[in-house]
């Protein structure tokens, strides 16, 4: 990009008082994004943050860009229209697990299958925060909340599996406790041409505190965080003593000592066929077992708004620019003297 003025985190921040609960994981995500933006080679005026409703959806108010805080669940649809009308913009969509997977589930999957150029960041805290603590579509079975005093009976979504199932061309996971990892994933997401789905494991310290601790806390990362790295065998543990193999059409955690490094699955995020990525997404029997983070899938597919724009160009090339008088006569006319 040319002519992009140098900016700092401050330039990308608004003067609005940030209103999340003290200690909320959303703060670290906001900071990571505000710190990353100056390095992306984009301008503030060409950047838009669109959100729905929920704690996470407050995000646009704190970004000194264009922004829309819309209605519950609809942000992928609104952003799809904006991206289709304005392929020149950089559009981010921010929402929580309730916003994206519950009320907005339909729009999410359709935005992903269309592969429209919007970057969807889903903050997953496995709870409804804004409405003060009901189980969400990612809460584990048996979750005790105010609306499920005897434990929730609903089976949760696996967001990565869902996004892969919807045909998303870019699917990744990161978490709020590691700014470096988050920035790396978001930067790669930004470079991707097409729909992006990034699940960000986020702590709601008021209504679901510590829900991700077994995975994201520094002390637990060795045992439970599998950092996917393109081209490398999938390994984790303090001494890389664990690995992932595929056996009987399932991804499994094994001791590397038992199978040897050569038996491990080598991660290929550019693999066209999403099957292996899907197997990897099934690894996490969350929120307590080894969980992959990083980019599950990043493949090139035709981007929607470019396809729409190309049809306009083709139509002009074929029929010439629109001519109103000709359009009104297209069904045949007659003249009365």
């Amino acid at each position, binding site marked *: 990009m040319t002519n992009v003025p140098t900016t700092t985190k401050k330039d990308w921040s*608004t003067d609005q008082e940030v209103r999340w609960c003290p200690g909320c994981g959303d703060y670290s995500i906001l900071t990571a994004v505000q710190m990353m933006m100056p390095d992306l080679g984009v301008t503030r005026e060409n950047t838009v943050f669109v959100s729905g409703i929920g704690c996470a959806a407050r995000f646009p108010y704190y970004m000194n860009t264009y922004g829309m805080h819309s209605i519950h669940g609809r942000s992928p649809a609104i952003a799809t229209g904006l991206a289709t*009308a304005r392929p020149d913009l950089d559009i981010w969509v921010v929402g929580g697990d309730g916003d994206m997977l519950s009320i907005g589930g339909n729009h999410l999957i359709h935005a992903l299958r269309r592969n429209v150029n919007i970057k969807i960041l889903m903050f997953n805290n496995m709870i409804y925060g804004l409405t003060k603590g009901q189980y969400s579509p990612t809460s584990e079975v048996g979750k005790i909340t105010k609306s499920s005093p005897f434990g929730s009976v609903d089976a949760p979504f696996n967001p990565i599996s869902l996004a892969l199932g919807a045909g998303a061309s870019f699917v990744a996971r990161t978490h709020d406790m590691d700014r470096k990892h988050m920035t790396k994933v978001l930067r790669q997401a930004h470079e991707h041409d097409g729909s992006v789905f990034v699940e960000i494991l986020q702590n709601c310290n008021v209504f679901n505190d510590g829900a991700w601790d077994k995975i994201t806390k520094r002390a637990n990362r060795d045992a439970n965080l599998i950092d996917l790295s393109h081209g490398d065998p999938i390994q984790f543990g303090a001494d890389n003593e664990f690995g992932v193999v595929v056996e009987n059409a399932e991804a499994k955690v094994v001791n590397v000592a038992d199978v040897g490094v050569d038996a491990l699955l080598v991660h290929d995020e550019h693999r066209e066929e999403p099957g292996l990525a899907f197997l990897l997404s099934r690894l996490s029997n969350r929120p307590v077992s080894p969980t992959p983070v990083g980019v599950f899938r990043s493949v090139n597919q035709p981007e929607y708004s470019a396809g729409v724009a190309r049809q306009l160009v083709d139509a002009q090339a074929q029929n010439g620019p629109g001519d109103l008088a000709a359009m009104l006569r297209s069904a*045949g006319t007659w003249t009365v003297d």
Partner: protein
Amino acid sequence: MTDTAPRELPLQELSEVVIRFAGDSGDGMQLTGERFTSVSAVFGNDLSTLPEFPAEIRAPQGTLAGVSAFQVRISDFAISTPGDAPTVLVCMNPAALKAQLHHLAQGGAVIVNSDAFTERNLDKAGYKSNPLDDGSLVGYRLYPVPMAELTKTATAELGVKPRDAERSKNFFALGLISWMYSRPTEPTLQWVKDKFAGRELIVASNIAAFNAGYNFGETAEVFEAHYEIKPAQLPSGEYTNVNGNTALAWGCVAAGQLANLPVFLGSYPITPATDILHEMSKHKNFGVRTLQAEDEIAACGAALGAAYGGALAFTTTSGPGVALKGETIGLAISLELPMVIIDVQRGGPSTGLPTKPEAADLLMAMFGRHSESPMPIVAPQSPADCFDAAIEASRIALKYRTPVMLLSDGYLANSSEPWLLPDVATLPDISVDFATEYNGTNEDGEGIFLPYLRDPETLARPWAVPGTPNLMHRVGGIEKEDRTGNISYDPANHEKMIDLRAAKVAGVANDIPALVVHGDPDAELLVLGWGSTWGAIDAAINRATDNGYSVAYAHLRHLNPFPKNTGEVLANFRKVLIPEMNSGQLALLVRAKFLIDAKSLSKINGVPFTSGEILDAITDELGQK
């Protein structure tokens, strides 16, 4: 076809005729009616059409549920309706006769494809005996014609299989009616050649059937006369025949050109609005982007997103879709962004009567959203008028930065009329400016952008689209502070914003034409209409005037806000009658707003008003003469 020399049948001149073509949905009756309409248009008649589609797409063949009909009225004078009752009914099978006979005027002609009146078909239509010979059609002029057999004979030498020949029998009917009303044949033959180009056997078969029908009229000693309807004295100029959905689509495309903005349509298929999506999807060379969304909500959301990005945005739907879009429309009202919601009304509630017109979404358009959420409403009055209505709705949306509801209906959508084409150079300029500069200063005297600082005249807020340097700002559904647009929970600010949004919409009244009274301004009775009732009201007023009644009428293009003089106009008449295809929704609004004793004339059976029904109501009010 026979060796009989053509007889010289008397040619009688008629002023008008109303013909209804009816058959099974597979019989091609819509096409037959459209072709007849098309040649009549080119011939120079005035005309009006009323297609009637079966409720079910794949109803079993030969059943009442599968009957499809097309009514067309042609005349040598200017008309505004497709006619109250047809005088000629063409029926391709017993089900069509059973379902449609009640429309026919007493003494009217019934022309049937007698080959279809088999025991099996009679049974499917629920006839206990054959109406062609049981005397039940006494009172009508019955012409049984073995259309299927004659078509088979005419096409046999071309090598058309009998089964395939059946498919051409609608052209036999068209040929026969074309003879009966002295229509030029050349345009139809040419159309067949163009339409089926490359499928030579079909071309030959349809042409043979058409000619056979035409010749049958001339040579078979069945009919007593044939007729002529001279061209109408219409204003001079170039005409096309257009239905409401096409005119709406063209109006949306034109509005984009007139506003100098790219057009965006977010839509989800729904009867009877889908054809607007089809038509707009064709015009990509105008830069029109159409998005077939995953649902009605997304369609509206995508349109709103496009509007935020600076497009002229539309979403098209019918009543159930408006219900789903309600929350997003509320957001558009709060964000104060322009967009047009097009509701092609149909019978409801719920799935209701999807292929039948109704105009019962007026109160939903007025009030069918959460909280205080006023929006302007405009309604077209005839098929061609949909073009102007789309431009007017767009103009208001853009100028006032508000969603606007356009209320069409299934009748306008599918019926057609000749349209004197406008000179596109005379269409209004509806362009508006985007904000590009700071519009305020902070305490330090530095320039800032106030996204909710209003234009003092229109109360519209600036439209600053993403990509504009320095004007980055956030909008949202949470109540905003006046001027800054920052989140505000201040009670006084909320009330102020409610008042401002209402005042902005009310202010549109300063910017629309006054309500015009036609007819006798000193009459006792004013008929007040809106939407598609215009044609029937217009015809009824003419008939009432011819009968010596003194009566006035006025038609509302804008339903929110009403034209400024509406109250004054209504107060001038002792009686006000409001015909509507609902249970009295405009009447309710008028009574509430102007405290007058308006009387409702309600019709809600899925069929548009006839002029006779409105005339009866007028004479009831004014007493028999």
